[in-house]
C-alpha cells in the first residue's frame, strides 16, 4: 500500500546547527485522515512540516538523511509540481502573504494565476473559497491592513483554493477568536470529508481531540507517541514532556481523583457527558 506521505529514518539538521532538528523520523500518513501534531515549542513540529513539504532541505538547505515518499514516489522527484500536491499554511501568516498584491481577492487568486488557470475559473474558485473561509467582506482590502486573525484566514484561503490533495497546516488559529477558531476546524473537517489528507499543528488540544483521527507527539526532535487520538490524549504521562492535555482529560482525571471509577479517560465533551450520564444512572 502506498501512503500519502511516508518518512523512513529521516534525520534533518539545519545549516550551522549543532544537532538535528528532527531525528530518526518514521511516519506513515494515510489518505483522508486528519493528523494532529503536538509537542512543546522547539520540539520540531514546524521542522517536521517543512520536511514533509520539502522546504527542508530544498529551501532551508541543511542535511537530510533517510527517505521521504509522497504517494510512493520520492518527494524530490516531484520538483515544482509538489506545490500542486501539498499545500502549506505557514505558522506566521505574514510569511504567507505575497506582498505583491493590492487586495485580499488578488492575494487569494495569486497561486491559481501562477498555475495558469482561466480568469473566469479563478474568479469562481476564489469566491467559493472566500465564502467558505468567511473573508468575503475583506475582498477589497489590502492584505497588510488586516488584523492578525483576518490575515490568518486569508493565508488559509490562499492555500485551500489551490485544492492540494495533502494539506500541512501550521497553527492556523493561533490569533483567532474562539468562534472563528471553531469555524476553521469546521472547514478542516469539511476538507477531510473531501478525502484530503491533513497534517495539523495546533496547541488547542481540545479541538484536536474533537476533530483529529490520529495524533503525533514530538519531544526533543523525536516522535515519542503516535496513535489514535483518544489513546494518545488520555495518556497523562505526556504532561512530563510539557504537553498540554485536553481540559476534558484533566477534568476527568480530577473526577477520578475525587472517587469516580473511570477506566479510559474521556478526551471530548460528548465522551465526558456520556460518562457522567452513566454515573448518574449508577452504571
Amino acid at each position: 500500500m502506498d501512503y500519502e506521505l511516508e518518512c523512513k529514518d529521516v534525520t534533518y539538521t539545519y545549516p550551522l546547527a549543532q544537532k538535528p532538528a528532527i531525528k530518526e523520523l518514521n511516519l506513515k500518513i494515510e489518505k483522508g485522515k486528519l493528523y494532529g501534531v503536538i509537542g512543546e515549542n522547539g520540539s520540531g513540529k514546524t521542522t517536521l512540516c517543512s520536511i514533509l513539504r520539502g522546504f527542508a532541505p530544498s529551501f532551508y538547505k541543511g542535511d537530510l538523511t533517510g527517505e521521504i515518499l509522497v504517494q510512493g514516489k520520492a518527494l524530490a522527484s516531484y520538483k515544482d509540481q509538489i506545490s500542486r500536491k501539498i499545500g502549506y499554511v505557514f505558522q506566521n501568516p505574514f510569511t504567507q502573504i505575497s506582498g505583491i498584491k493590492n487586495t485580499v481577492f488578488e492575494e487569494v487568486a495569486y497561486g491559481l494565476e501562477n498555475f495558469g488557470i482561466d480568469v473566469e475559473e479563478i474568479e469562481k474558485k476564489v469566491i467559493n473559497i472566500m465564502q467558505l473561509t468567511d473573508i468575503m467582506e475583506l475582498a477589497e482590502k489590502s492584505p497588510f491592513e488586516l488584523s492578525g486573525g483576518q490575515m490568518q484566514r486569508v493565508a488559509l484561503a490562499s492555500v485551500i483554493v489551490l485544492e492540494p490533495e495533502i494539506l500541512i497546516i501550521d497553527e492556523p488559529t493561533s490569533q483567532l477568536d474562539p468562534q472563528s477558531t471553531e469555524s476553521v476546524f469546521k472547514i478542516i473537517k469539511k476538507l477531510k470529508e473531501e478525502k484530503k489528507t491533513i497534517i495539523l499543528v495546533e496547541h488547542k488540544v481540545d479541538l484536536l481531540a474533537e476533530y483529529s483521527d490520529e495524533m503525533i507527539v514530538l519531544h526533543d526532535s523525536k516522535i515519542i507517541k503516535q496513535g489514535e487520538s483518544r489513546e494518545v490524549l488520555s495518556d497523562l504521562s505526556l504532561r512530563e514532556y510539557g504537553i498540554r492535555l485536553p481540559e476534558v482529560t484533566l477534568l476527568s482525571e480530577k473526577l477520578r481523583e475525587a472517587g469516580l471509577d473511570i477506566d479510559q479517560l474521556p478526551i471530548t465533551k460528548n465522551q465526558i457527558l456520556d460518562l457522567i450520564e452513566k454515573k448518574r444512572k449508577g452504571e
Partner: protein
Amino acid sequence: MKDLILKDASFSYPGDFLAVDNINIKIKGGENIAIIGQNGAGKTTTVKMMNGLLKPTKGDVLIGNLNTKDYTTAQISRYVGYVFQNPDDQIFHSTVESEIAFGPKMMKLTEAEVKKRVDNALKLTNLTKEREENPYNLPLSIRKFVTIAAVIAMDTEILIFDEPTAGQDEVGNERLSNILKTLHLQNKTVITISHDMEFVVNNFENIIVMAKKKVVKSGTPKEIFWDFETLEKANLKQPIVSDICRSLKLNNSVVHMDDAVNQIIKEINNS
C-alpha cells in the same frame, strides 16, 4: 500609580476606516486586566491608543493626568510598555541581550543599571540561557518572550501584552502566568489581549469584552462567561469546564475546574 482612562475615545485609520467607536474604559493603577473579543473588534487599536502609538481621532486617552495627545509616543513609552502581537515587528537586534538592553540604553541609564534590568528581565522571562542567541534562531513563541523581556526592562508602570498566548505551549502559558503574577506583585498595571479563554479565567479577575469596535461588557470571569448574549456578540465561547456544566444543567457560575469537579460529584451523588 496612574489610572488609565479612555474617554469617549474613537479611532479612524486613514481613509475614514473607523476601528474603535466611542469607548470608555477605566483601568486602575495596579490592575491586571484581560481584553477579549472577536477578531477585528478593535482590541489592538485600543491598546495602541493606550500607549500613544495611535492618538484618538475623537475623545481622549489619559495616563494619570497626562493626555496622550499632548505627548510624543516616545514620551509615553516611559509610562506604558507595549509588546506587539507579532514579535517580528519589534525585534531588530542580533542577540537577545542587545534586544533587551536597547530600551534601557535609550533611556540613558548607567551601564550597571542597564545590566541589572537586562538580568532581571531575562530571569523573569526564563531566557537567561538564550542570552547570546540571535532572536531569529529561536522559535516564534520564544521570540515573543524576547519582546516581553524587552518591555519589562523598560520598567514602565503600565505594560500591555498583545496576544502573548498565541502559539504558546503548556510551558509557555505557565511562564506567562508567572510573569503576570510577578508584575502584579510589583504593582504594575498589566493589560493583556488573549483568545485563550482558559488562560483568561485562570489569570485575570477582570475582563473587558470588545465587539464591533465597542466595549460590550466589563466584569469578572463569572459575569462574562455565563452571559451568552455577550459571548455571542463577541465571537467568544465559554471555557470548556463551564460549557460542560451548562450541558449538565449545573450551577450557572462555574468557570474553574475545581468548582466543576465539586458540582459534578455532588450531582452524581444526589442522583
